């Protein structure tokens, strides 16, 4: 933090064009006296979260910088009418030197009238502004509204202002700035703001950049690689050098960047889709393309078996996976990760993660309509002590709040319901939170494929291009370290959901009118990836000076690789163009021809009359050197759990502890901030039961109002099993995702799944080995359950480097984390069931086999146990169980159904009871463990908390018990007891009472940990 003048210099611009008497007015808006101060309170709560200064007094204001040449009275009139809500707010207008010129307050109040706020005279005043060029949607809207009102405005920017006591400017700078602002997108200015101009950018003077590659030796190549943040390997740099030697010239910066983007891990998945020599206890296996030979292969063989009944439409090729829904519609599903941006700027990272995966759906086939979102996060525990926090890492609680707000604000504004999710806590995510954003869309069967035609125009639709997210693709393929903010601030983007909603509205109309031949989204790599991909078979010529810019001064390369959000690229034939232009303009969406897919087999870039790149498509897409990677899995020596560690454990207390652990506890604080019902398709909501607060197994939607056919969305994730065996982790995640769908009524024969691998540094054979082992499980289980994978994504190198207190170099790797997302279908949503107990007197059955599976279990986590057997999956038994349960649900034999997962039988019982506002009496005497020889099998606590897969608890009307039992022939089934109206959960083994707790108490234990204000 410097003084205003110095810090704001980059904002100012001597040769800006606005008239000389134009003044930057500072509009400062505070709540009227006595009203809540949301801006100040937000900092207060973050200070609390991070155990910062306790005696802090702080007041906040929201503000606008309005640059106008009109008179103060005109500005005041407009401000009062447009920017301020005089019923609840007061304002002051300061001039360019920070002197108060106007003020309005019904009570003559100053900010000091705000509760607990400092005396302005005694306070340190701090301004927080977005850095130049960072997207500021609210400023754009304010500018438009002020102009509508008739005020001539040159520019508008938003800011926040704080009055802080008792900290001095120096203390604020050293210890406090992080609570006020995020360095990666914001600048903090102490003292009065002195601003002459907020117009940014200056004219760009073209200069062709040639990179001296031919003459470079190995060391210089590496230097070029690092300086350019290309994230290429030495072998790749050498290949590029060889290519240009053959051409007899040095490359331009744009050519080198294009290759780096196209060859990046993020865009090409070179590791997992590459050659791998894998070794484990069963021997050695050589893959030429690991993904193709495991996950893709499973889908291929399932589709071959299904033959003419194959319901997959487009898998592992388009921007998302597509399957058949009904005769008119297909359904598209994709889950992406946005981990690194979220670590640096949680709000913007999650925000653009959601925006990005929505564009994947919009960019599928000829454009699918997004109908719901799913969001899964992995964080360090929110109660992590700040002394356990590495330097320059945001506190997990702050990351979680920022990520949730980012998902909320993008999804809610787009009008896409967020219907499913999960949050997993583990300390190893401290520097590397995981943010999985998923989107589901529907598209007409005859619009499910695209075909770019030679000589189609290259059309950019949507937002303008700025410096946002430069090097996002290569950045997300590199490791994070404590100085990432400095090196990759540019990679952080802020989204503008409304721009994307406008784009969405126009794109879907254009699709239905047949106004383009192909579409894809501008994601990582920006135009360079989108155009390179669409023109791969044909060739493309791009006229970079035509691209609409947010502000002046971008170089041709910045334009080419910018990852500015909310942009799509269309292939439009010349006869389609006029109507597309008219349609887009009628809704205020910018549409521009930026080039043409010329049948040259080359990618050619020009800026005005200058050629700045000329690459052969086949080198770009086929020239990357193949590397063979080594992968090894050595089964760790796993301790067995000693029965004596468990004998003294009180089951009742263990149940309360598990319900109250962050992983299991209610996520209502998150869920209620998401609009999960917009579009009106919601059938089973994320929270279910008597008080709409029980944990539903899966969400059910009804995509069309003229049919009862439904979609089911669920997920499975448990990295803790992976610590014992990644194979069983993957198998369990698949089983969990599928059984969650089946539990609400999905047809197990119509469930498709996605994989998202987030792993550590896979250049270590053992790390890559654990990933391959998980992929092998994906192959085996998919085939055994006849459940195809239709799309997937990976995010590697999730490790965080830092220096500890002793100055030693440390590195934290995340646990290998596989998210399985499932999309199921149901013929008639009116047959769906929920997990809440419905009626006292019903019988309770346990379906499926229980084994001594405490390895990685939540009982183990709360007791601090190590080792043990991770849950395994018998795929064919699971398939049979799912099929018979589905038939029972179809014939309305089942009142409620809940899958057994975290915390096993005891937790599932408790959840069904408090969700249904019922009690239950259960006796586990007849529940015998499958693998009788283990020393643990005699323990009640094992039966209660084992996390064996493929199990369900079901509630059956007493009168239909025999019918139900008949329907379950061949599946292990135990009648455990019955639902009561007693308001207590009692679990016995014969005479031994194991659990006896009021349902209220269980519910409170489950709801309180994350019941944040």
């Amino acid at each position: 933090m410097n003084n205003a003048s110095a810090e704001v210099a980059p904002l100012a611009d001597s040769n800006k064009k606005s008239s000389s008497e134009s003044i930057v007015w500072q509009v400062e808006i505070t709540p009227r006296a006595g009203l809540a101060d949301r801006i100040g309170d937000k900092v207060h709560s973050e200070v609390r979260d991070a155990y910062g200064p306790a005696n802090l007094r702080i007041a906040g204001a929201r503000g606008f910088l309005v640059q106008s040449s009109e008179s103060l009275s005109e500005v005041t009139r407009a401000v009062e009418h447009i920017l301020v809500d005089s019923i609840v707010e007061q304002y002051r207008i300061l001039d360019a030197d920070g002197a108060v010129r106007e003020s309005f307050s019904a009570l003559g109040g100053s900010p000091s009238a705000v509760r607990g706020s400092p005396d302005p005279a005694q306070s340190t005043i701090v301004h927080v502004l977005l850095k130049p060029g960072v997207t500021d949607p609210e400023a754009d809207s304010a500018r438009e509204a002020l102009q509508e009102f008739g005020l001539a405005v040159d520019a508008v920017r938003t800011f926040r202002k704080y009055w802080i006591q008792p900290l001095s400017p120096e203390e604020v700078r050293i210890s406090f700035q992080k609570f006020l602002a995020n360095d990666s997108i914001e600048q903090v200015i102490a003292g009065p703001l002195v601003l002459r101009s907020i117009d940014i950018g200056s004219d760009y003077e073209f200069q062709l950049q040639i990179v001296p590659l031919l003459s470079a030796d190995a060391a210089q190549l590496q230097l070029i690689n690092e300086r350019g943040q290309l994230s290429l390997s030495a072998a790749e740099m050498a290949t590029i050098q060889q290519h240009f030697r053959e051409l007899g010239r040095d490359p331009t910066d744009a050519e080198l960047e294009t290759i780096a983007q196209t060859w990046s891990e993020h865009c090409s998945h070179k590791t997992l889709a590459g050659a791998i020599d894998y070794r484990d206890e069963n021997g050695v296996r050589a893959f030429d393309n690991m993904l193709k030979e495991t996950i893709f292969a499973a889908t291929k063989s399932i589709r071959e078996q299904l033959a003419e009944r194959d319901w997959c439409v487009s898998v592992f090729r388009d921007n998302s996976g597509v399957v058949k829904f009904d005769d008119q519609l297909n359904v598209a599903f994709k889950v992406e990760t946005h981990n690194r941006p979220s670590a640096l700027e949680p709000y913007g990272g999650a925000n653009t993660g959601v925006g990005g995966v929505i564009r994947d759906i919009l960019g599928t086939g000829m454009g699918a309509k997004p109908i719901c979102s799913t969001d899964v996060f992995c964080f360090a525990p929110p109660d992590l002590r700040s002394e356990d926090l590495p330097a320059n890492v945001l506190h997990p609680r702050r990351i979680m709040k920022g990520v949730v707000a980012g998902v909320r604000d993008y999804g809610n504004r787009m009008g896409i319901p967020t219907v499913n999710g999960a949050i997993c806590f583990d300390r190893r995510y401290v520097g590397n939170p995981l943010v999985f954003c998923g989107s589901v869309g529907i598209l007409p069967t005859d619009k499910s494929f695209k075909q770019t035609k030679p000589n189609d125009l290259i059309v950019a639709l949507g937002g303008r291009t700025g410096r946002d997210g430069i090097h996002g693709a290569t950045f997300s393929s590199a490791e994070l370290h404590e100085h990432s903010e400095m090196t990759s601030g540019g990679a952080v983007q802020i989204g503008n959901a409304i721009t994307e909603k406008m784009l969405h509205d126009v794109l879907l109309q254009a699709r239905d009118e047949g106004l383009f031949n192909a579409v894809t989204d501008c994601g990582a790599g920006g135009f360079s990836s989108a155009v390179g991909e669409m023109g791969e078979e044909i060739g493309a010529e791009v006229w970079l000076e035509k691209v609409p810019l947010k502000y002046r001064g971008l170089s041709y390369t910045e334009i080419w690789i910018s990852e500015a959000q909310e942009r799509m690229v269309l292939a439009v034939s010349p006869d389609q163009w006029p109507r597309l232009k008219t349609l887009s303009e009628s809704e205020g969406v910018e549409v521009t021809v930026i080039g043409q897919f010329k049948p040259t087999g080359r990618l050619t870039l020009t800026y005005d009359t200058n050629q700045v790149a000329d690459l052969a498509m086949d080198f770009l897409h086929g020239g990357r050197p193949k590397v063979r990677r080594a992968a090894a899995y050595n089964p760790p020596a796993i301790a067995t759990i000693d029965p004596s560690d468990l004998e003294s454990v009180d089951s009742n207390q263990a149940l309360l502890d598990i319900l109250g652990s962050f992983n299991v506890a209610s996520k209502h604080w998150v869920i209620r901030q998401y609009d999960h019902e917009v579009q009106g398709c919601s059938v089973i909501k994320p929270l279910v039961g008597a008080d709409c607060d029980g944990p539903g197994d899966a969400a059910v939607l009804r995509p069309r109002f003229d049919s009862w056919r439904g979609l089911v969305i669920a997920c499975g994730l448990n990295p803790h099993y992976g610590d014992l065996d990644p194979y069983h982790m993957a198998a369990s995640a698949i089983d969990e995702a599928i059984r969650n769908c089946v539990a609400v009524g999905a047809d197990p024969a119509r469930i498709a799944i996605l994989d998202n691998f987030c792993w550590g540094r896979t250049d270590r054979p053992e790390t890559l080995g654990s990933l391959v082992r998980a992929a092998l499980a994906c192959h085996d289980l998919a085939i055994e359950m006849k459940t195809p994978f239709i799309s997937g994504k990976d995010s590697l190198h999730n490790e965080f480097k830092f220096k500890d207190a002793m100055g030693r170099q440390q590195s934290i790797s995340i646990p290998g984390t596989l998210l399985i997302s499932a999309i199921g279908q149901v013929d008639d949503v009116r047959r769906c069931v929920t997990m809440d107990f419905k009626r006292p007197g019903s019988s309770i059955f346990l379906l499926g086999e229980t084994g001594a599976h405490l390895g990685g279990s939540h009982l183990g986590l709360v007791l601090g146990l190590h080792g043990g057997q991770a849950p395994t999956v018998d795929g064919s038994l699971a398939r049979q169980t799912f099929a018979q349960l589905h038939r029972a649900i179809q014939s309305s034999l089942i009142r409620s159904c809940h899958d057994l997962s975290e915390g096993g039988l005891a937790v599932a019982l408790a959840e069904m009871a408090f969700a249904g506002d019922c009690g239950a009496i259960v006796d586990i005497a007849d529940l015998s463990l499958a693998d009788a020889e283990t020393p643990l099998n005699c323990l009640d606590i094992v039966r209660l908390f084992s996390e064996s897969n493929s199990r369900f608890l079901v509630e059956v009307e007493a009168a239909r018990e025999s019918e139900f039992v008949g329907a379950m022939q061949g599946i292990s089934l135990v009648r455990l007891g019955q639902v009561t109206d007693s308001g207590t959960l009692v679990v016995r083994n014969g005479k031994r009472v194991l659990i006896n707790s009021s349902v209220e108490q269980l519910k409170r234990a489950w709801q309180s940990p994350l019941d944040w204000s």
Partner: protein
Amino acid sequence: MAKPTVLVLRAPGTNCDLETAHAFEMAGGQTERIHVNQLLDDGDVLQRFQILCLPGGFSYGDDVAAGKVLGAKIQHHLFEQLREFHADGKLLLGICNGFQVLLKCGLLFADPTAAAPATLTWNDHGRYEARWVTLQTESDRCVFLRDVKEMYLPVAHAEGKFVTRDAETMEQLESNGQLALRYVVPVRGQVARSESSKRVVTSSTRTAETLFPVAEKGNSADSGSDPENWIPFPFNPNGSQEAVAGLCDPTGRAFGLMPHPERFVQPTQHPRWTRDGLQPVGDGLRIFQNAVEYFA
């Protein structure tokens, strides 16, 4: 007889237009979704329609304040057309963001040109909140609420707290019968019969300054000192004064509400249908039927 015609207005950020159009169609209306830019080009488009609905969403991102930017556009470019539309005996409905827009451009008040006497501001707890609420009709003035005593509907908003400029304004709106819809506490499915009149007397003496939570968030001291008259969170999900969920204009032909009636027209949209069974249609449908039947 020709179906009554409904214009569902789209703007940048509108996102409930499809399901709102569906609800009007279910009710027997003839609906068209039209972009505000088209109306700005040619205000006469309005003349084809009998009902104008501003659906939910985030018009212009709710930047500056919810509904503010679209409200300003309407005030500066469409105000006269809308007043004529309304004066011709036609109907105006604003749902959620649409309510925020109607309120901020003055169309719900006796004198639309005066500075807005009331606003919708941030929920007490300062967050976006999605949940179902029980609502009770408090006035026979509103065309849209004829024969509606009680409804169970979802809310989903961050800025839904109804606040008047002062106590007099609240009394005025009350005596005009404009406080059409209120949040109430459900008691075993039935609505608590809280004597709303008493509630009004006790709290309408309070003004904006004292009507806000001054201590911790969600403090509900702000609608009446008498606790038994206060509708607490979550039943009053945003801390609205007088638990106001919907407001109509003095004629009852213009109506705005925060809850989403279009999200409960189908039986499977109810959050507890797997417990309580499927009712024939959702509570919200009545609002759209009343609008359509008004022209029958």
